[in-house]
């Protein structure tokens, strides 16, 4: 199903685009609607302010995800930046990067299309209680981890591979960013997270050996490698890439998702 609307190149269109996406996704959870609305606002602002172009907003629904596209006639390409906390601007695409399940930029003959996707999450089917405060994240981590291990026992993860889809639909907490030194490998990154106690705090099942493979099998539900164009590829503990990577937009970005935590790496 596809619903689309065109908007004039004027500042007010940004609000119009937001209201359109809010209406189209009115059956979705508040979290999904608000994230979609915010990302549409950022992309529509880019079209109006930077591309100085009319734009089209299209919303596609598939069986399990929402894909939102903003296309315009602008020549330049939006750039993902990493502003310091004191810098006032440059956070538009960064917000898309943080909130979207996946996103990308596709050049077209007469402009470009920027898209993002979110999992379909109907408002009546909340899978976990909403977290209202990040201060409680630490305390709730063990709670959601125990529920994750109940839903996806380690034995099952080892045999059949992690259940990515179930883990993604159960995910609800904030995205966390982790610093890493440059260059890095997937293995060094995971070892660092393990040591820092951020993502992989302690074994879900203490009977498992505390080796990297075992802990990964137990707790790393999803691992996405995201390339520059926003294309992503699901990885598992069995096929961790071995090459050396560098931080920044020129290289791949790893997204970790577990039922209890989500991290975007790197941030250096």
């Amino acid at each position: 199903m596809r619903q689309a609307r065109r908007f004039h190149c004027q500042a007010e269109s940004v609000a119009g685009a937001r209201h359109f996406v809010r209406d189209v996704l009115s059956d979705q959870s508040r979290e999904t609607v608000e994230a979609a609305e915010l990302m549409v606002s950022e992309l529509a602002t880019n079209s109006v302010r930077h591309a100085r172009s009319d734009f089209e907003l299209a919303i596609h629904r598939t069986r399990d995800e929402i894909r939102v596209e903003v296309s315009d006639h602008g020549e330049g390409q939006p750039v993902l930046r990493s502003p310091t906390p004191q810098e006032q601007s440059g956070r538009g695409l960064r917000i898309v990067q943080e909130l979207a399940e996946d996103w990308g930029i596709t050049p077209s003959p007469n402009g470009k299309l920027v898209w993002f996707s979110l999992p379909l999450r109907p408002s009546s089917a909340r899978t976990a209680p909403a977290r209202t405060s990040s201060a409680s994240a630490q305390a709730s981590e063990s709670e959601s981890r125990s529920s994750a291990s109940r839903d996806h026992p380690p034995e099952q993860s080892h045999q059949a591979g992690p259940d990515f889809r179930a883990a993604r639909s159960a995910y609800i907490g904030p995205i966390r960013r982790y610093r890493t030194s440059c260059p890095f490998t997937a293995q060094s990154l995971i070892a660092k997270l393990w040591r820092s106690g951020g993502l992989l705090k302690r074994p879900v099942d203490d009977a498992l050996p505390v080796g990297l493979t075992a802990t990964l099998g137990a707790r790393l539900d999803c691992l996405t490698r995201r390339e520059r164009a926003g294309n992503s590829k699901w990885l598992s503990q069995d096929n961790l890439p071995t090459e050396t990577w560098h931080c920044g937009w020129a290289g791949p970005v790893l997204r970790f998702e577990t039922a209890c935590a989500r991290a975007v790496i790197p941030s250096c």
Partner: protein
Amino acid sequence: MAELEAEPPLKAEPPMLRIDMRLDPTGAQVVTLAGELDSSNAATLQERVASIPPRLAAPLIFDLTGLRFMDSAGIAVLIGAAAKASSVSLRNPSPIIRRVLEATGLTGVFLIESRAIES
């Protein structure tokens, strides 16, 4: 965009933003925002904030209780204000705003005041 070329682009209404400014009994400057804050009206807020007379060590509080929406254009104004005030507090930011502040590494720039959220 070709398949919709025949249909005229949509004209949209500007978003509503209400800005109320007052001094609270402790001497803090409170800016209460309601409605939607985006790139179309961030400049208006910027002007109002810039008009606040500079007073030494006076904290600035943005009351976001009634603010339904804010994007990075609004965040930019708040960061600009934080550079000039002794401290900037955000009162009752919505969950999505908190999430964005956390995700973009801005929680250290502002003091967050939140009342307990009823479920």
